[in-house]
């Protein structure tokens, strides 16, 4: 996995609560058996005026001029500023894959849905929870200032504004460790293979019915 230590980037404010995973990447694009290539279809139904199809050349489609990511000032944004309960709905990891493929590295919101939040960390994408009042302020500043960038430091766990104001955020130690070091967490778990075997052997004795199906 790609490591994440620090990132400075242009902020795109998406002023809408409860952005769900169907909105982030609609179902017709989940038919792909790959992990990449979802960027052109990120927020497909909001970004384009027509209904998108897999394997279509999206560069020829009509854009919705009202959608935030279609505005010239937000081109090449890499920090997505969002509202509460971002990523609610399904477990599709295609949602963080699409955000990543589009070029986002950080998502800031007052709250995230659990599964989406977890999926981000598996893909080198950093979701940051900040207090709603701070998020409100960042919305005002980013909408009011063209070229507004934020500096995100995972080591220090801070988000810093262009005027030098700094906000700290929480992140689980294990997730932070994996992200800072770009670790493959399957490899980390397999370091405990012996503990897994010990558990499994004991369980096989006490609950044998758990081991007799599926084959």
């Amino acid at each position, binding site marked *: 996995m790609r490591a994440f230590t620090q990132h400075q980037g242009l902020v795109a404010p998406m002023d*809408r*609560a*409860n952005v*769900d995973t*169907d*909105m982030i990447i*609609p*179902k017709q694009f*989940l*038919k792909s*058996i790959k*992990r990449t290539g979802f960027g052109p279809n990120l927020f497909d*139904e909001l970004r384009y005026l027509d*209904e998108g199809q*897999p*394997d279509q050349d999206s560069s020829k489609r009509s854009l919705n001029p009202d959608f935030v990511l279609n505005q010239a000032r937000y081109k090449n944004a890499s920090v997505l500023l969002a*509202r*509460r*309960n971002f990523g*609610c*709905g*399904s*477990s*599709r*990891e295609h949602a*963080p894959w699409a955000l990543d493929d589009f070029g986002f590295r950080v998502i800031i919101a007052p*709250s995230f*849905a*659990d*599964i989406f939040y*977890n*999926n981000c960390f*598996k*893909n080198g994408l950093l979701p940051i929870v900040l207090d709603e009042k701070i998020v409100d302020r960042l919305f005002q500043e980013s909408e009011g200032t063209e070229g507004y960038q934020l500096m995100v430091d995972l080591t220090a766990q801070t988000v810093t504004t262009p005027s030098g104001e700094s906000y700290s955020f929480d992140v*689980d*130690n*294990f997730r932070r*460790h994996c992200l800072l070091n770009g670790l*493959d*967490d*399957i490899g*980390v*778990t*397999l370091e*405990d*293979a012996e*503990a*897994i075997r010990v*558990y*499994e052997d004991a*369980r096989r004795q006490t*609950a*044998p*019915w*758990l*081991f*007799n*199906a*599926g*084959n």
Partner: protein
Amino acid sequence: MAGKTLYDKLWDDHLVKQRDDGSALIYIDRQLLHEVTSPQAFEGLRLANRKPWRIDANVATPDHNVPTTDRAKGIDGIVDPVSRIQVETLDNNCDEFGILEFKIKDQRQGIVHVIGPEQGVTLPGMSIVCGDSHTSTHGAFGCLAHGIGTSEVEHVLATQCLVQKKMKNMLVRVDGKLGAGVTGKDVVLAIIGKIGTAGGTGYAIEFGGDAIRGLSMEGRMTICNMAIEGGARVGMVAVDDTTIDYVKGRPFSPTGETWGKAVAYWRTLRSDDDAVFDKVVELDGSAIQPQVSWGTSPEMVTGVEGSVPDPAKEQDPIKREGIERALKYMGLAANQKITDIQLDRVFIGSCTNSRIEDLREAAAVVKGRKVALSLKQAMVVPGSGLVKAQAEQEGLDKIFIEAGLEWRDPGCSMCLAMNADKLGQGEHCASTSNRNFEGRQGFGGRTHLVSPAMAAAAAVTGHFVDVRELMN
């Protein structure tokens, strides 16, 4: 010391290792696989040169992409080549690794969350995961069950474990007797209406109280299925006689001496009387009406006697904007009566409501009636080949067909429209599925979440109607 909640017990029983950094390794007893969220996981295994840790813990079936007509054609019946490749990829991966799969032409094929319990692949007390957020369904059996992303599907394949942090405990207690025509679906929609779509974020929810205890396993599955719509990855109901009676005699259920041992353990799977929950939410079951969602989030729901809300009355600016946006998308006016909403299509199916009891409830309403002429389509999609066979044995298919509903083959179908079953732009659908997000059932489609009985009532009238009026 306070007693343990059901979730505490399930957590402790699956704890392989507590790490110093607060994370824990949790053992997974069962992984269910389907074609949409597994291909990249198998590919990841191959690229890293890893093998599945325990093959017999996995069970697979294709469900999202399968067509609901012409099942005899098998994979050749999938017209969309991209969908076909995905189903073929699941078949190839399961064949390569030796994983049990109920393939498209197998009568045991169906929606993963229907076939797990049906086969006894889901057993009380198990930890169960699947690359699908509605895995919470299996919590109805006193399981620790939740959806995961594809990276975690790969993680479970490779290690039989997940890295987790313990969630908080929430009890949703529904006491009182449910009225006639009020189902598990109405209860869970009322719960989500109360706690909101993020109300359960960070919690494992246990559903309890008389009203929940009085439900069948089908009703409990419907409720746990939609825990995720209230933000909670995990929804659970304690084990009781209803649970054990349902599990007995299933193909993969234990038998003989092991059965007795298993039942003795399963009976411990309830919260202790002195267990402490971080949050308790209470509802009066006797006050719950049949529910209808009017907006684009499952929390945007009201009783059938109610009306579409007026955004001008909402104080919270973010919520007000959400309501305004939803009304615009849904083509509804503030204060419009729910029963005045005209429909274009009716969909009875999905992992929420496609089990035999759901079909019986819908059939009881449409029996002797006809689908309204104003509807373009009303379809019934059973949750599995075995549910379909059971329904046909009971003659439910004939009741549906005579009333003018289409009787389809099993799959996820119009719940998320990955196959050919979808809504057209601007069409209103009474749907027994779980999500009314924008575009969920088709580009520009407008979903209203209801129970099977309410969907059936809508099918024969062409608009929403209080199903209790048709039951008299």
